[in-house]
């Protein structure tokens, strides 16, 4: 790879890596009101099982089109839904840059989330991969689309904090 290409690709990787670290940080630190801002205005967000993806089935566990629906997820969490308090810890695994064309960066990264309940009980709550499409904006990188693919079809009790 030419030096200039190598630099560009390393910079892209660092930018994406830094973006993803900031993204999971707001989810892990209860700064959920900032979550929709990581997306463009008409961004898409889905949490879907690996099984449904492999079988070509459209059903998602969470499905948001546009920031309005993302904000509704957070407002429902804050005021409407009933669930026991808990926190997430996202551990991000390998990041692959799949493509970088026409201003969009396609990535795939693996993740694990440990969920800790108020009484201290910890569990491996979710694992899988996220397929993201990132675009540039005046405020830096934003998600045009994030598809979180859960390896398991089983959700333990409920999913309310986004992944």
């Amino acid at each position, binding site marked *: 790879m030419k030096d200039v290409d190598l630099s560009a690709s390393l910079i892209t990787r660092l930018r994406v890596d830094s973006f993803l670290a900031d993204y999971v940080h707001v989810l892990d630190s209860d700064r959920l009101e900032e979550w929709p801002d990581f997306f463009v205005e008409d961004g898409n967000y889905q*949490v*879907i*099982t690996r*099984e*449904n993806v492999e*079988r070509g*089935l*459209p*059903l*998602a*566990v*969470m*499905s*948001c*089109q*546009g920031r*309005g*629906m993302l*904000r*509704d997820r957070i*407002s*429902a969490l804050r*005021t*409407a*839904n*009933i*669930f*026991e308090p808990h926190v997430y810890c996202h551990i991000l695994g390998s990041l692959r840059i799949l493509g970088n064309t026409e201003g969009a960066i396609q990535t795939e990264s693996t993740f694990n989330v440990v969920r800790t309940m108020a009484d201290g009980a910890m569990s491996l709550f979710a694992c899988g991969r996220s397929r993201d499409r990132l675009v540039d904006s005046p405020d830096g990188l934003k998600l045009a689309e994030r598809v979180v693919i859960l390896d398991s*079809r*089983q*959700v*333990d*009790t*409920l*999913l*309310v904090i986004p992944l």
Partner: protein
Amino acid sequence: MAQPSLAAENTFAWPGEGTWRVPFQVYTDPEIYALEQERIFQGPTWNFLCLEAEIPNPGDYKTTYVGEAPVIVARTPDGRISAVLNRCAHKGALLCYKQHGSVREYNCVYHNWTYDLDGNLTGVAFRKGVGGKGGVGPDFDQKAHGLVRLRTETYKGIVFGTFSDRTPPFAKYIGAELIASIDRVFIKPLKVLGYHSQVLPNNWKLYAENNKDSYHASLLHVFHNTFGVVRPNMGGGIKISDNGWHHLSYTERGAPNNDATGREKVRSLKEQYRLEDASMMEHKLELGDQVTNSIQTVFPTLVIQQIFNALAVRQLVPRGVDRCELLWTVLGFEDDDAEMTTLRMKVNNLVGPAGFVSMEDGCVGGFIQRAAQADRRATTIMPMGGRAIEPSQGSRVTEAAVRGFWKGWRECMKL
């Protein structure tokens, strides 16, 4: 089959008349749980196996559970549905260990015994031995060692199975009134839109009760009350089968009966709460009426759901005395256009493991399971709507259908 456990029957006593008080012991006692496997799941009950749409072609199979018994349901070469216990007659290994697939026969990986899709034993490896030595011997009757079979019945594309020869035909089991409610939803060929499940930290019966509990719908679920999906003053009602085992709870648009919601100051009515994008609450009427929410249960563990355009079957599987798995099969119709599929995908945000409505049902069972440990002899109380098991027109503020579930439980369990 195992002998009934005398210990459970000696240390368990149903409190008094009726089924409006339920002992917490039923949610925590492992002996009662074991007896349920025999008396309910292998008893005179119809249990959801799959949808015909999931096994359309000869050889197609799906693995599932009836209670804790692993079951394979398949389409035979001549197009019939057949269901067998997923257990080799030889040493008991699972015959199919994948979720679904297509096979010409069942072939056990352990010793290569083979069965046709009706469960007849068709091949025993080295049946005659090798070189004149070994083999099963002349008194081994292959016909006597097939797989344990379930009887199946299919209604409107839903496949049910039973281990018991005492189970009446499905139409008689559910009754004429409630079979018409299945007809109401399953009007056209179905399409599966996807699967997911919730693993719940509670005894299966706590979730089974929740589905029959129309009283909680507008009280636990802020979305139901605040957004007018289910409010106590909307039209609708409760239908219960004659024997109490099965029910339907439905809510419909139309003139409110009275202004009950205004008078009851309940947590779930948040008048200032608004959705920024309410497009997921859009409802295209497609079933010929104004029903917004219809929850139907078929004892013991099937739910047929219609919430706006979100259609699904939910299958409840016990996974131990304090754990169960709720398997969602989300549906559309074969002739849905792209716009309808998009609408269904949006409104499915209300249900499932992250459902704006359903997530809470996943949560409350665990609250009860923890508190139920405290005193085996204490009971719940369910006095709403009286003590009897009567259907009600208009009012869903009743626990009658839950009392009906317990009547079915007591009759199967003989407790």
